[in-house]
């Protein structure tokens, strides 16, 4: 199961890398969203997939599954959700103000 998950993470990361390296703003943002999903799966897999019972001391004698990775992922998902929502709005505003969603056109010079 772990191997399968790692292959899946690898695919997600390669897809995301391809998207992030493109010139279109929206593709880059989708790339970062996929990238964060890959990171969440990575935490889940490396933290150990479900091996034991629910960690309720009185309900079961053990062994228990580590609940921490899930708590970490929950936090990370909320953060990446907020950031993605913000970046989408920002990308729309940038497109509306600068009139392009192509990063090469958005390069700009510092001394201008």
């Amino acid at each position, binding site marked *: 199961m772990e191997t399968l998950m790692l292959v899946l993470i690898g695919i997600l990361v390669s897809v995301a890398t391809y998207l*992030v390296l493109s010139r279109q*703003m929206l593709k*880059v*943002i989708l790339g*970062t969203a996929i*990238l*964060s999903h890959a*990171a*969440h799966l*990575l*935490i889940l897999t*490396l*933290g*150990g997939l479900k091996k034991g019972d629910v960690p309720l001391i009185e309900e079961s004698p053990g062994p228990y599954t580590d609940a*921490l*990775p899930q708590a*970490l992922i929950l*936090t*990370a998902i909320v*953060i990446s959700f*907020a*950031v993605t929502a*913000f*970046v989408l709005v*920002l*990308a729309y*505003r*940038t497109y509306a*103000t*600068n009139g392009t969603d192509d990063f090469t056109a*958005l390069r*700009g010079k*510092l*001394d201008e």
Partner: protein
Amino acid sequence: MNNMIVFPLILPIMTAILLVFFRHNIILQRIVSIITMAVVTIISAVIVWAVPVHGILRLDFSGWQPPYGILFVADSFAALLVFTASLVTTIILLYATCTIGEKRERNFFYTFVLLMIAGVNGSFLTGDIFNLFVCFEVMLLASYVLITLGGERVQLRESIKYVLINVVASWLFLVALAYLYSTLGTLNMAHIALRVTEAGQGPLLTTVSLVFLAVFALKAGLLLFQWLPGSYSAPPPAVAALFAALLTKVGIYALFRTYTLMFTHDALPYRLIGIMAMLTIIAGCLGALSGRDVRTIAVYNVLIGVGFILLGLAIGTEVAFQGAIYYVLHDIIAKAFLFLCIGTMIYLTGETVIDQMSGLIRNYPVFGWLFFIVMCALAGIPPLSGFIGKVLIAQAAVAEGDFLLIAVGLASSIIVLYSLLRIFLSAFFGETIIPLGEEMPLPKTVIWPIIMLALLTIALGVGAQAIANYVVHAAEVLANPTQYIDAVLPEALKKGM
């Protein structure tokens, strides 16, 4: 006593939320946010005083004993940074009240400044590495809003790059955390340090530590700084000053914590940091020399500062840490000072290129000499604040035989002086092109915050002895991580090793 260390995080957050409900009462927003930051500054001053007296302070949230819960730890290093950051933010807020413009104030400017400082203070104080990630994100999300607030063309164009590079850096942070958790099974920084010592720092752990190096180098602007010049010159001066003073320092703090507490057993990262710091200084010097825009010159000076502080980490002795701590405190004050000066110059003349300004010192004598002070402070001329840090780092480097590091570091002082002298000679001296009496009036509320920063940099230089006690204590903990571990972990856990 221990409960006190949560206030630098919780007070700004609560005030920030409260201010959302008073969107149209701008006067109230100004007063409340400045008072909040002043109170936070006072509380953090008490924390700075308390740490050497009562030992390292620790607060376990909800009573979960380490290593199980999230906790805040205040050692002298963190406390000094929280104090300086809060103080400088208070002064920048004073400056912002009259320069930021009503449009931004109405759109929750103060709320986001307070949220950002909450994230910054949280990052300094936390003792849990996942909590560090969360505090980073709080700080970054607030900074994303501050950098875009106003929605000007250049601002939007630069900020989308800033946001995207930071999203990718945060992803790397998560990956590093995943590997760290799977190897060591803990997220408490002191416990990580203990387990690394226990298990030995093998190739796998060194690799994990190098991923952390990449993450924090991105945030601190160490070698991976290509996003920094554009994004720091786009926002209005008050925001740029906040960013220059605080954001890179959080990355620097994280690097110090990682390599003085957790991954201390392999020399490779220190050598890498030394090389990266030198390259950062050289690149910063080239940028500062080639720039004609005052903002460009100021931004590249930020990079030189970052490189110089991290020379202290690369050398890695107790004296070097003392120097680095002095220098990081100086850099927070002086960079805020520099960016407020630059912002005021742009505000007064409406120009950004140095050739277009001339003879300002006859129009604004006080302001002109304030710029002279910041120039001397950044170059490290005694008795101003940059001197003591440079001397200590240089002493440590000579004692360790790292002559190349310190040659580059001290040579950069001359470049800093030259690049700022260029602004000073061109913009302040020379023919006065604005006729006397017709210049734009310089409001008192603009000049007072800058004078306060000037007094601070003089006070830190002259009164270096007064804070020496705290700096020595901070450097001692950095050099002997067992003190930090002893303060955080209960006895039983250590006996079990």
